[in-house]
């Protein structure tokens, strides 16, 4: 067992873990953060994507001990404390960017990372930015719309004139 200390969704936590415990298992089993899910065993699907010190990672591909001293944000920590949805969460709902919802936590976390790095991505940049996340329901069409919609609304929020391009769900 190894002692780890980290901050998860703003909460300081400290636990003894087996070195073999994956970050995703730590989140789900020790912290009850079951919003983050496991979709594969080869790190292809991205369903377990969280932010580790502000960058998207596949939490199945990180040992919990590697996250010692870090800050983790999961899908459960994305909305405001008052429950206000993050613009990307809102955009996924608005644009019907999810169906069964299993890939959604990872897809949203990766979309947030994508927009953090590139606030005005082209459609192709969105598609390539999400290439580490598999979805079986949506055919990606409305996920791409959701990221475009969020991009416009984040820009509108940043610039009071709100000149951002509007994307309507289709």
């Amino acid at each position: 067992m190894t002692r780890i200390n980290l901050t998860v969704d703003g909460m300081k936590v400290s636990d003894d873990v087996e070195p073999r415990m994956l970050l995703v298992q730590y989140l789900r089993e020790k912290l009850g953060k079951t919003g983050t899910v496991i979709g594969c065993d080869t790190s292809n699907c991205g369903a377990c994507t969280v932010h580790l010190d502000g960058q998207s990672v596949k939490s199945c591909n990180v040992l919990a001990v590697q996250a010692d001293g870090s800050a983790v944000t999961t899908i459960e920590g994305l909305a405001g404390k008052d429950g206000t949805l993050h613009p990307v969460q809102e955009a996924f709902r608005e644009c019907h960017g999810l169906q069964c919802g299993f890939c959604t936590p990872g897809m949203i976390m990766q979309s947030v990372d994508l927009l953090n790095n590139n606030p005005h991505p082209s459609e192709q940049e969105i598609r390539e930015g999400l290439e580490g996340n598999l979805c079986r329901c949506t055919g990606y069409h409305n996920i791409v719309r959701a990221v475009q919609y969020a991009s416009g609304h984040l820009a509108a929020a940043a610039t009071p004139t709100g000149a951002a391009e509007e994307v309507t769900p289709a």
Partner: protein
Amino acid sequence: MIPAQFDYVAPTTVEEALAALRQYGDDAKLLAGGQSLLPVLRMRLNAPEWIIDLGRIDSLRGVREDGDAIVIGAMTPHSVVGSDPLVAQHAALVTKAVAELADAQIRHRGTFGGALAHADPAGDLGGPVRALDAEFVIAGANGTRTVSADDFFVDLFETAISEDEILTEVRIPKHTGWGAHHEKMVRVAHQWPICAVAATARVEGGTIADIGIGLANMGNTPLRAGGVEEALRGQPATEDSVRAACARAAEGTSPPSDLNGSADYRNHVVQVMCRRAVMGALEGAGA
């Protein structure tokens, strides 16, 4: 999905890491970014007793300039390498290859040295470092030694790094002003490439002054398309000369046959991709 039990140590200096390697020997695995090792552990395809995590060794991280070379610390994440202006200026081929490497999440965690030490012939970096004549700095009990890219890749998943050694940095001779192009063929984006061709070239007065071409997934190690390079050096930077030279792209290759393509097919398609990569590099070099 759950790795077998192992013990874990996270040294903070290269010396400590080397000491741990000496202590645990065969029972240990080095953990760099973990983006290839962790899947192997999860699938229980390997079950080391010790994991030595290099992630806490700050000295292994970063990109710097050193005379005629760009030096990339072995534990520098791909995302850092990919956005580094020095790399973009002096080793554009690396920037282009890293942009196509895996996906954003993997690029955040995976490391430049880890990927190269993993020595997957289908990996995205082997071709570029061979094309660029990179050198590998390897630390051991008796200090460091430097190995050329040609000698670094020994066999499938096997490099010149001994069991008691650690790759610390990769030195890439500056290729300032060289054009670069990375041509990668995948069936779906998150897949391993059927093959990839990395080309970088310098053009002087319409003539190909120098060129480097690396191939991925065309043999047990990343390969260098030496025949094509030889045929092109000093030749006019034209499509005709490139087309003729790239007919030699499959010389000396021994590609795998797998679900994504047979060896025969790879040997065909590498010629087409080589031509496109070289043409792209020449264009970037102002030809």
